[in-house]
């Protein structure tokens, strides 16, 4: 069977980075959702989804991004998207999510932009 999506998770001092490469659709979405609890996110940290290698994302994929957002908020952490591809930007515009997720050009930029909570 062709593997449509690869998922790589790494932990940094500032939180977790999940790299998604391939197609994020109703076949592959459950895999990403299942990986969220394992990202080891702590309160005040930031979860970065690196989408540089994402070639396709449908509504199930959007669900996963929203699930990741809910997951981060439940952990009192924040979320950011890195390297959002053009096709996903367009979907974000259609579904009205372009201002819901903070976005950065690269995962590095997302980490650099992260500020520890002031409280």
């Amino acid at each position, binding site marked *: 069977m062709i593997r449509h999506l690869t998922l790589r998770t790494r932990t940094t001092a500032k939180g977790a980075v999940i790299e998604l490469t391939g197609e994020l659709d109703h076949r592959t979405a459950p895999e990403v959702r299942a990986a969220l609890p394992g990202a080891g996110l702590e309160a005040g940290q930031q979860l970065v989804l690196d989408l540089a290698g994402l070639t396709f994302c449908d509504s199930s994929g959007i669900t996963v991004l929203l699930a990741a957002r*809910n997951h981060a908020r439940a952990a009192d952490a924040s979320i950011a998207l890195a390297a959002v591809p053009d096709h996903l930007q367009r979907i974000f515009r259609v*579904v*009205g999510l372009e201002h819901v997720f903070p976005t950065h050009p690269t995962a590095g930029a997302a980490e650099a932009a992260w500020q520890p909570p002031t409280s």
Partner: protein
Amino acid sequence: MREAGGAAESGDRGEDRRPADEEALFSALLEDSAEELYEHAPCGYLTTLMDGQIVKVNSTLLDWLGYERGKLVGRKRFSELLTVGGRLYHETHFAPLLRMQGEISAIALELKTADGSRLPVMVTSRVKTGSDGQPLLIRTTILDARDRRAYEVELLRARQEADQERDRLKLLNSTLQKTLLPPALANVPGLDVAAYYHIASVEEVGGDFYDLFPLAAGTWGLFLGDVCGKGAAAAAVTSLARYTLRAAAVYDPDPAAVLTNLNTVLNHEYNGTDPRFCTVIFGLLTPDADRGGFRITLASGGHPPALLMRADGTADYLPTPGGQLIGVLPDADIATTTVHLAVGDTLLLHTDGLTEAHTNAGSEGRYGDDALLAFGRALAPTTASAVIGAVRDLLDTFGSGVDDDTAVLAVHVPRPTADEPR
């Protein structure tokens, strides 16, 4: 002794040459004749003339069948040993194949024994020809297949059961799908409407939905949307969304208010580790008394824009920028736009199953928004049934490239007929 000699020879050629006394021991053990081997082989042997008349049979088979040799040789044909159904099979399949191929192997049949019981067997036959190539005899080997048959019956039963389960699931899915779609669209005087739902997979119920229904005082509501995901969980959201939209439109028909209420309901129900959202366009149709045709106010909750194909042959999307998907954001923004549908105009609502379809099964390329716009421009001016027909044809050309359900709903203002002046 040919068989025994052969075995001993192959032993000789082995890496380890056996001592002479061991060889002698084997020879003694193998001191049986070919005749002995034939008679008591662990399988049945049978020889018949070309017409099936039994001319030779070994003891093993006689024992299995419970017949005296004299009852079979020269007295019965091979097919007479079969069950009646097996005999039909023999005449229509086995014998023709054997005649044409000279050989047939591993056919499952049942033999009738002398006491009337049945013996499942595997039958292999080969035609022996003379030096002139003429067929002379049929040699048949018969293996006891009781265990194997029991296993096969079990396999067959399991397969039939699986087939039945799959059919049941398909039926359940299509029934469920039907309950999510209106049995018929409301009749709106002065408006043609048409819709189509394309089911991508009968294995999983999809999450697209649409409806068109009367509201108070000569106004009509319509909606088309797409719940993310598939299967029973998505269907539950689809059902909730559908009924909420119908009820919310009665409560307050303002399209933005309808979607805001839907957003509130879905946010209560589905938001967490498995969030469920939908994208939807809701429209309020009002006959335009001054200009003729209809006025339609569309509210979009993150849904792909509607496509307006005008009477003058132009076509454009009706953008609703800023509208947000419904069900996961506490205060989703709803964007609205109002247009006038003049005589000859056609409005098409679609779900992204259409634009995200692979244009060829197995290809990477997807149809896309630009292609749909070009499609609308080529088609305009058109009618509701014509555009829905064209979309159906388009989906047909994609074949299995359509991997998500697709719903389309079209409304068209026809030229008024003479007895129905506007």
